[in-house]
């Protein structure tokens, strides 16, 4: 029976009333008796030897409890680990508090603990550090050159890894091809901006030797595991709690220095310690995203057939390896370089490069936006070169519809795909023919408007563990659930995923209510506490519903199966004659012979008349490890106008047609597309992290880092096609990242289309007003030559 809260319904988010009314507990709301406050002293230099750190003045400052240098806690703090290990990768030491050398502006050098945050901040300014400043390098391509400043002794030429993937024979294909187009593309560095910055509260119980860590994270269980590894504190005596988490976008997906610092200091001082990041501090000390310099090419024939793609990428990893960093520009970038196209020949080489900058790791999309950008820009350049309409080149090269797997040349198998309907629908929503007419008219009036397409395939539902492990993942990427039916029939759901804005509670309540037939409000979803939930992996890679939701679905089936066995026993009929629907167990063909959900649950717990050998209780646990990733796809279209006097770009329309398989809550999916597209527009038009040559972060605050606002985005026009996956029983693929993955190439393609009559072929992001003004001016000058 379908209800207003069933799977597929746009149920309002159950968590929002508390989240927006000030009643939720975010990290800074955690206040413990006797809690002290930590301030981290950070390096103002991008690269320097530490000659001396003197915390005497700070330690004697009013209200200060203690001050520590990196050397003081060297024994207690091991190296922060890289959790994704590629073949022949270097793993440079990463001390949570630097004590020999600092390698980026923001590297921690000391920590001051005081009675108040104010006293800690005042005292931190009294820590004296003598630096021997060294030359710095911030650009990945420059960093690999002979003679460049060297960050780590064990990574010659700052090359952390060289990684390749491919299929077919690109060089042979290019030699035979009628057309080869080449382009250098910069995918600029971005700074993630969750509305809540990171923060940690650590508490140590002397009686039990237990450390409790509240931290604003996407991965509480992995933090527990890695905390134990770095500090040596036994894992069973570590409890990690992710309270309400105000956004993450990937930047809360790691073990961070402050987590282990606060935990160890709380233990040393035997009192709770809190650290809350400021926004500017976060800009330096929380991971960045993207930052690729890529030389890319595509080959094919004059008829518009694409035969191959090749990329050589310098991926900037920053000063140290963040937890997942090596996996982002490699596995999540290279395997989908064929996109939704028949791409028989793929060649991908990636240099992972260490530089004197903030570490780089996943940022919403994580490798897949960079991949899609390369493909979709190249498809447009190739279309222009071969004289075909970009919509037709896409259509001509799409992999035809498939429902039971399609292996692509890089060796991965897409689950299901039907790419043309999404393109058709997007073009229909735009009215492509009418737009081209409008564009001709606008040009005659001196206005510059353009349309850009982006057709994509992404890797979601991150798992399966064995495949991920073979590619370098250091942890299993399955997901878990517990369904615990209380004696009253109410249901507690425990998930190993860890939401930070996605509305998991609502979606998981819908799944539970739909499958069990119990009222929506009788379900409570618990997450983010390692003492409550069975081991889990966390929320990232658009995996929560596809993997975690499936684990929940399977536990629900186990519960129903057991309940049916109880009902059959009670009603004295064979199990196969019992059906369950909407809260009632009944004997097939004799509906009046039935038991209610509540009665069966009551029998499970009273245990006075259970089938022989059956244990009392009604509870199920599932660890679900799928056999494949999921592969959402779609087509996005941007329409852009450029002011030719100022170079300012405005997005006039944005159309997104996504296929994420079946949808649990369409309103939540729409919201995630909105957010992702806004971030994609931000990257396309205006966001960029800028470093000076000596490693100072010039875009170091929101006054200089241009996040998009409501005035920068248009009304979004959304639709979906539905191609279920057979990777999981609900047929869901994952929807958290489509926006950032598809959007930025659509924006740039639209800008280049607007200027194509001036001979413009490519512009690197972000399309700032000045950059576009120069592009237009130079193009016009070149035309008049």
């Amino acid at each position, binding site marked *: 029976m379908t209800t207003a809260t069933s799977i597929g319904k746009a149920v309002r988010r159950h968590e929002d009333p508390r989240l927006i009314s000030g009643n939720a507990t975010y990290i800074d709301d955690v206040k413990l008796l006797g809690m002290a406050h930590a301030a981290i002293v950070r390096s103002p230099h991008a690269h320097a030897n530490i000659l001396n750190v003197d915390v005497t003045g700070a330690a004697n400052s009013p209200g200060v409890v203690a001050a520590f240098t990196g050397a003081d806690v060297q024994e207690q703090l091991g190296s922060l680990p890289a959790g994704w290990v590629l073949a022949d990768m270097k793993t440079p030491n990463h001390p949570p508090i630097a004590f020999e050398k600092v390698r980026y502006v923001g590297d921690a050098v000391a920590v001051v603990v005081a009675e108040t945050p104010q006293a800690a*901040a005042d005292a931190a*300014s009294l820590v004296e550090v003598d630096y021997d400043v060294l030359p710095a390098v911030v650009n990945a391509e420059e960093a690999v050159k002979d003679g460049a400043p060297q960050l780590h002794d064990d990574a010659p030429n700052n090359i952390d890894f060289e990684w390749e993937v491919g299929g077919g024979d690109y060089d042979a294909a290019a030699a035979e091809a009628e057309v080869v187009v080449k382009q250098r593309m910069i995918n600029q560095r971005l700074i993630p901006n969750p509305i809540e910055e990171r923060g940690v509260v650590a508490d140590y119980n002397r009686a039990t030797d237990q450390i409790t860590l509240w931290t604003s994270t996407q991965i509480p269980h992995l933090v527990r595991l890695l905390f134990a590894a770095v500090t040596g504190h036994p894992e069973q005596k570590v409890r990690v709690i992710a309270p309400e988490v105000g956004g993450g976008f990937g930047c809360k997906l790691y073990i961070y220095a402050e987590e282990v610092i606060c935990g160890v200091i709380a233990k040393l001082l035997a009192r709770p310690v809190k650290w809350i990041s400021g926004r*500017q501090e976060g800009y330096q000390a929380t991971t960045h995203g993207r930052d690729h310099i890529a030389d890319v090419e595509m080959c094919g024939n004059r008829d518009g057939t694409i035969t191959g793609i090749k990329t050589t990428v310098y991926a900037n990893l920053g000063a140290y390896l963040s937890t997942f960093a090596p996996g982002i520009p490699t596995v999540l970038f290279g395997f989908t370089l064929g996109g939704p196209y028949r791409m028989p020949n793929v060649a991908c080489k990636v240099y992972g490069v260490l530089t004197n900058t903030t570490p780089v790791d996943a940022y919403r999309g994580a490798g897949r936006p960079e991949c899609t950008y390369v493909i979709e820009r190249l498809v447009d350049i190739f279309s222009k070169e071969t004289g075909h309409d970009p919509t037709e080149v896409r259509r001509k090269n799409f992999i035809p519809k498939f429902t039971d797997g399609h292996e692509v040349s890089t060796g991965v198998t897409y689950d299901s795909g039907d790419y043309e309907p999404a393109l058709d629908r997007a073009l229909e929503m735009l009215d492509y023919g009418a737009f081209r007419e409008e564009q001709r008219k606008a040009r005659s009036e001196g206005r510059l408007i353009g349309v850009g397409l982006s057709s994509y395939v992404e890797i979601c539902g991150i798992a399966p563990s064995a495949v991920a492990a073979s590619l370098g993942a250091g942890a299993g990427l399955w997901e878990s659930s517990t369904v615990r039916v209380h004696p009253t029939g109410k249901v507690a759901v425990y998930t190993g995923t860890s939401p930070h804005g996605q509305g998991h509670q609502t979606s998981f309540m819908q799944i539970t209510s739909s499958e069990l037939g119990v009222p929506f409000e009788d379900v409570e979803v618990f997450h983010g506490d390692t003492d409550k939930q069975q081991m889990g992996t966390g929320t990232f890679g658009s995996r929560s519903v596809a993997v975690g939701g499936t684990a929940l679905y399977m536990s629900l089936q186990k519960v129903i199966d057991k309940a049916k066995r109880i009902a059959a026993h009670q009603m004295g009929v064979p199990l196969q004659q019992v059906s369950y629907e909407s809260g009632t167990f009944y004997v097939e063909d004799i509906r009046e012979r039935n038991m209610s959900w509540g009665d069966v649950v009551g029998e499970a717990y009273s245990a006075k008349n259970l089938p022989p050998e059956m244990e009392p209780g009604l509870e199920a646990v599932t660890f679900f490890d799928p056999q494949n990733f999921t592969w959402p796809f779609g087509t996005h279209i941007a329409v852009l106008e450029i002011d030719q006097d100022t170079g300012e770009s405005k997005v006039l329309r944005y159309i997104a047609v996504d296929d994420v398989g079946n949808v649990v809550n369409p309103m939540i999916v729409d919201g995630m597309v909105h957010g992702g597209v806004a971030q994609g527009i931000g990257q396309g038009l205006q966001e960029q992290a800028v470093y000076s040559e000596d490693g100072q972060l010039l875009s170091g605050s*929101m*006054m*200089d*880092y241009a996040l998009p606002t409501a005035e920068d985005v248009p009304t979004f026009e959304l639709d979906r096609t539905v191609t279920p996956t057979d990777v999981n029983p609900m047929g869901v693929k994952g929807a958290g990242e489509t926006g950032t993955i598809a959007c930025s190439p659509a924006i740039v393609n639209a800008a280049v289309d607007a200027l194509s009559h001036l001979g413009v072929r490519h512009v690197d992001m972000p399309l700032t*007003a*000045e950059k576009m*003004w120069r592009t237009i001016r130079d193009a016009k000058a070149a035309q008049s030559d």
Partner: protein
Amino acid sequence: MTTSIAAPFKYHSPDTVEEASGLLSRYGGAARLLAGGHSLLPLMKLRLASPEALIDLGGIDGLSGIREDGDELHIGSMTTYAEIARSGLVAERAPALAEAAAEVADTPVRNAGTIGGSLAHSDPAGDLPAVVLALGATLVASTAGGSRTIGADGFFTDFMATALGSDEVLTEIRVPGGGSGSAYAKLANKASHYAVVGVAAAVSVEGGVCTSARIGITGAGPHAVRSPQAESALVGSTPTAAAISSASQLGGAELAGQFNEDIHASAEYREAMVKVFTERALTAAFARAGG
């Protein structure tokens, strides 16, 4: 340091301008006036400014409000951007000021930030300095000993520096009357929404001929300036589109060699944009002047 916590400071909330001025004297330059705080407090939180004391003007009666005084519009220095932006009087008498106030930052800032705070802070990319230059406003500076007036032309002296004495409180902005049209046009920094370039223009037209023109430019140089060469090119001419365009090419000519350059815009771009936005501001101003 990457703190978000200001260094310790004392806080005073005087009841009168005289008292505020006395406090300024007492601290001998180590105190700052608080007049909205949306520029000052972020600097303090980053410890780029660490005044010994803040003297809050918010408790002084009579510093806020917009009224007519004969031909002139008198605006109290503690009048917020929001009040100015929604004032019918300002929209009618000094539309450039209304436009600029409405374009400052975002709603929370406009509800707290004040015209006096903006002018006295003299941020090189602030919107209002350009407007008071174009409107030929007079600024009233007060101390315990009395008041004096300072012409807008002589008010902005250098990067974040004004003609205000160390114990003077800016108390009022007087906008002269006259049948002129004015407008403000701005290229906003996408991050801060400050002006990459902002141009205010105020013009008068009689019998189809431009009789006066004042242009104020912000964002482009170390402080807001007028653009006398472009102004002179217009006075005495018929303000056709061609004449406006031609005069706009002289917009910011006086800033040659002094254009700001930062991660948001090069000097070359700012120089070009001053011309574009001079033309836009002039075109709108002449339209309002009935020219």
